[in-house]
């Protein structure tokens, strides 16, 4: 469809965040009893999300629209721009937030913490600021929206601020966010190339010297990385996500991280024209390291939300790696391959947004049902909350990268992109690739391990502690979850449509396109550069499985009466089975600890075999904290100690200061 007959789409798109702000303010003003307040306003926000997604969709292939608002600085009013890239991420925001908001209606109605009116305001401001980040077309509006986003989410994270690790988490989060913002500001400063013009159009116009371009790229990598959670600025992520209420974690992990990816793509592919091969290598390496790091830490977590947070780091790493590949190909003008890598990346963005928010929401339901967050206490919820369990299963399979769900589709494309790197005219890179591919494969495989741990321990087996009043999710919660799960399945089974919808955007960014390779194959098959090289037909997959399943089922039934006798579990004939004999979360993580020991900073104490009351203690720290952050903090402290010495409290000293200043200046100007 062309954007011409849908000209006002940008106005509609820009109207949605304003609507969100309005909802927030009205919600703030509206005094009513908690449950009905939440159930009234959050679904409104969900409706806004739907509208946003639908309004942005035409722009994915349509032409670019830009408007200037009469707000902002006198010389630099707010510029809004709706192009392919922003459209894609707006759709992501709208579609995912719709599900989350719907869910949030029930969630906040039931949760005890915080003042729901404030939460409503902050939540919708958060949504609106994300939308404006995606729409911004000048540095000022971008920074404003960017920081408002950080701020709103900070307040949401610290909703339950009596707990001091939550406060610490929020603080850490905001600090890192601020550092990132500083880097981004510097990046824009580099991009605008001396003439004081901070609209993105002007930056597009500039062509930077290679050195400065590299500086800008690295600044962007740091700045956006601080939001996305690249190594080593990931430090806030596993703290802040668990601290936040689940819908907020879902929004942050699912959508907010993607805005950072958006920024990175915007700078790298849109504002900077040229790319240099080593940027790609840098991004690729960093991404893979991040992915491995994330998945390993996820494997050893004992708190389900921390586990998911680390898995977010992993997925972000994969996305970054994909971006790196795209840059790499693009820098060698291999546009089709760049297009492949980029579509894979974007596709993975939306997939991760879907299943990660889905899983975070399920943790929310679990916490409401059991008021536990630690894996060590949960178990067997598939019986008490079948709905959530079923939906969570879809999310788990998707995030574990299993066909025929969406996670696999994007990872498949990424693998294809990796396998096409031998065409790069650089032997070292060719040699590098197998290693990269290996790391990627390892990360993906470990993700499967992590997810089995997550699902198995939370939903399967026996409850590790007596879980009273575990009940299934409410209607709105189910609706929100189903919405997300639905898309996981649809995108998984029919990835071709998603990829071809992405094609104009990818073409705009890389001048390459997957069209012809897709034209050669049918809509059933997802293909890489060309169908005979590789293809993947998830629908056939699904059909095949279902057919065989039905066949076997019927055959078995023909053979057999299908009666089932219930009995106690056999368990190799051992009697006296109890729940504590199951694997604990630590137990599940233990082999990973063993194998990848050097990655962790471990503190362990094993009980001696003859211990009367054996106790096992194990704590895992992030090495980066001690490598990067502690030294910086020390430095600041020493510096401020030095400076503090200036202030001696003796008036004579102060007089000497000013006397000296006077003399020095007088001599200076002679």
């Amino acid at each position, binding site marked *: 469809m062309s954007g011409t007959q849908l000209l006002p789409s940008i106005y509609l798109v820009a109207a949605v965040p304003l609507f969100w702000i309005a909802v927030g303010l009205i919600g703030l003003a509206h005094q009513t009893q908690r449950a009905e307040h939440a159930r009234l306003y959050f679904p409104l926000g969900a409706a806004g999300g739907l509208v946003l997604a639908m309004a942005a969709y035409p722009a994915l292939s349509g032409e670019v629209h830009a408007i200037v608002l*009469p*707000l*902002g*600085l*006198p*010389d630099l009013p707010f510029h809004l721009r709706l192009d392919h890239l922003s459209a894609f991420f707006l759709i992501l925001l709208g579609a995912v937030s719709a599900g989350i908001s719907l869910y949030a209606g029930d969630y906040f109605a039931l949760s005890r913490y915080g003042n729901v009116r404030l939460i409503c305001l902050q939540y919708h401001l958060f949504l609106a600021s994300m939308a404006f980040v995606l729409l911004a077309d000048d*540095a*000022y509006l971008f*920074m*404003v*929206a*960017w*920081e*408002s986003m950080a*701020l709103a989410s900070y307040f949401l994270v*610290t909703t339950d*601020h*009596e707990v*001091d690790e939550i*406060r610490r988490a*929020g*603080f850490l989060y*905001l*600090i890192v966010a*601020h*550092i990132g913002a*500083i880097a981004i*500001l*510097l990046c*824009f*400063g*580099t991009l*605008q190339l*001396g*003439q*004081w013009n*901070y609209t993105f159009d002007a930056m597009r116009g500039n062509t930077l010297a290679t050195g400065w371009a590299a500086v800008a790229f690295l600044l962007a990598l740091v700045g956006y990385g601080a939001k996305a959670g690249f190594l080593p600025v990931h430090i806030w992520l596993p703290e802040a996500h668990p601290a936040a209420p689940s819908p907020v974690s879902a929004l942050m992990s699912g959508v907010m991280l993607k805005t950072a990816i958006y920024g990175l793509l915007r700078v790298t592919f849109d504002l900077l024209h040229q790319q240099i091969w080593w940027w790609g290598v840098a991004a690729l390496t960093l991404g893979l390291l991040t992915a491995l790091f994330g998945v390993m830490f996820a494997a050893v977590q004992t708190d389900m939300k921390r586990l998911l947070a680390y898995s977010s780091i992993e997925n972000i790493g994969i996305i970054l790696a994909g971006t790196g590949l795209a840059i790499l190909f693009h820098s060698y003008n291999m546009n089709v391959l760049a297009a492949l890598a980029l579509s894979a990346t974007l596709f993975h963005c939306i997939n991760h947004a879907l299943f990660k928010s889905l899983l975070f929401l399920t943790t929310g339901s679990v916490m409401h049902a059991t008021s536990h967050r630690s894996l060590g206490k949960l178990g067997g919820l598939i019986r008490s909350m079948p709905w959530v369990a079923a939906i969570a299963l879809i999310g788990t399979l998707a995030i574990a990268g299993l066909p025929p769900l969406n996670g696999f589709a994007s990872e498949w494309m990424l693998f294809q992109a990796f396998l096409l790197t031998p065409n790069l005219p650089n032997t070292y890179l060719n040699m590098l690739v197998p290693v990269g591919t290996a790391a990627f494969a390892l990360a993906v495989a470990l993700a499967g391990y992590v997810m089995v741990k997550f699902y198995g321990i939370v939903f399967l087996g026996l409850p590790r502690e007596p879980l009273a009043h575990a009940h299934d999710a409410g209607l709105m919660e189910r609706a929100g979850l189903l919405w997300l799960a639905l898309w996981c399945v649809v995108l998984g089974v029919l990835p071709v449509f998603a990829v071809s919808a992405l094609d104009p955007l990818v073409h705009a960014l890389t001048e390459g396109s997957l069209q012809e390779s897709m034209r050669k194959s049918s809509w059933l098959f997802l293909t890489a550069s060309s169908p005979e090289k590789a293809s993947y037909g998830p629908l056939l997959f699904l059909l095949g499985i279902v057919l065989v399943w039905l066949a076997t089922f019927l055959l078995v039934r023909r053979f057999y009466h299908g009666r089932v006798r219930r009995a106690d579990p056999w368990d190799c004939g051992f009697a006296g089975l109890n729940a504590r004999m199951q694997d604990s979360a630590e137990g599940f993580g233990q082999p990973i600890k063993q194998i990848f020991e050097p990655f962790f900073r471990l503190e362990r104490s094993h009980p001696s075999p003859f211990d009367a009351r054996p106790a096992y203690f194990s704590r895992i720290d992030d090495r980066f904290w001690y490598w990067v952050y502690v030294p910086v903090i020390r430095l*600041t*402290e020493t*510096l*401020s*100690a*030095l*400076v*503090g010495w*200036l*202030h001696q409290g003796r*008036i004579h000293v*102060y*007089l000497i*200061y*000013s006397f000296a*200043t*006077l003399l020095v*200046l*007088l001599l200076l*100007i002679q």
Partner: protein
Amino acid sequence: MLVLGFPLLGAFLLALWGNRTWAAEMNASMSLLTLLAAAALTARTIALGPMTEIRELFLVDAFNVFLVALTALVGFTTSLFSRVYMRVEQERGKLSSAQLRLYHSMYQMFMFTMLLALLTNNVGILWVAMEAATLATVLLVSLYRTPASIEAAWKYFILCGVGIAQALFGTILVYLAAEKVLGAGGSSLLWTHLHAVRSQLEPNVLSIAFVFLLVGYGTKVGLVPLHNWLPDAHAEGPTPISAVLSGLLLNVALYAVVRNKILVDGALASHLAGNLMMGFGLLSVVVAAFFLSRQRDVKRLFAYSSIEHMGIVTFAFGMGGPVATFAGLLHMTAHSLTKSAIFFAVGHAAQKTGTQLIEHIGGLINTSPAVGWGLMIGALAILGVPPFGVFASEFLILTTAMRDHPWATPILLAALGVAFASIFGKVQSMVFGESTARRLPHPPAAFPVFVHLAIVLALGIYIPPYLADWYRTAARMLG
């Protein structure tokens, strides 16, 4: 010239009846009248452009009229705040009625001297007014008669007195240079005349003069290393005074510096003055930022943040150029509004918890959401978090710095980062967490706080065109 009349009148009246129960209301109403007069004056200036009054004794132009308006506004809101605050202090028996009378009358006196300093056309009178401002506030700083407050006041007095003496020497030198051109007599100290002939003034004299003026008035601005009086005075005086000190006095002192800078620039045709100011500004920002993390007294904390922001503004004016100067003016406005709002909130917090020590303040948001959110939002605003006005000006300053002095930008940003970490960490622990505050019979004066913050927020998102033009004309004037 009602602008000057009202506070002077107020000073006398309150000197007589400043201890009555309605003194606070009277104080407020006087300030309100001043505000109205200032508003009228502003309107007229916008309409008719710059003008001089009473045999050129007074000058009103875009630059000072906006400061006048700002001063009057903050003066008014602060008087509203001090109404509530001082009542509590009095009930706690911290103040005798005589002290209260002194307080009220000196408050008006202080307003008068500042307005005089802003409005006068005579560089000499400017000096006199600045000195008078010091004299008016020094007794207020030691109002509580505690050892700490007396010490603070003494340092304030000596350091500012010495500084101001340097400024006088500078003024004399300016006069010396001026009389060569304009001949002896009163007219050669009139800024308008000086401005007219500034290109003919003897550069050597003026450069030396500027050093003395910068060191002199800079002491009052609180530039490092002349700043040492500032945290003490802010921390020990009554909170309304801290609010006006860092909200207004610093601005006025900086105004004096800038006024003279214009002359010097004209005479030297070099960037000497600008460079000096940039140096001081940068030094102040960095040093203050590192001081911040060591503070345990909340008012000292924000006093240092004032130093930091004055450094930023000085840096901006030092860079010069339309955008930077514009940003400097904007930052002045945003800073004095935000900072005074913060001090209001801090004052209430200190009264509710009975201490100024940061570690003993906590969970304000639970006992009194108004104060808690006021402090939180104010702190975020002062830290330059969008969408507040402070960010707008910092954005402009930084981006200009990136163009003109790229080397300075990372330093500034690093300092801002450190400041962010230190201030925010402390504020968070005060606002959130378990509450240590207790309720007071009087509701806090939420109105001034949120009015200020609302204006600052508005400045960040939308600067009305007339305001923008106004800043622009001022910026053009300062070159």
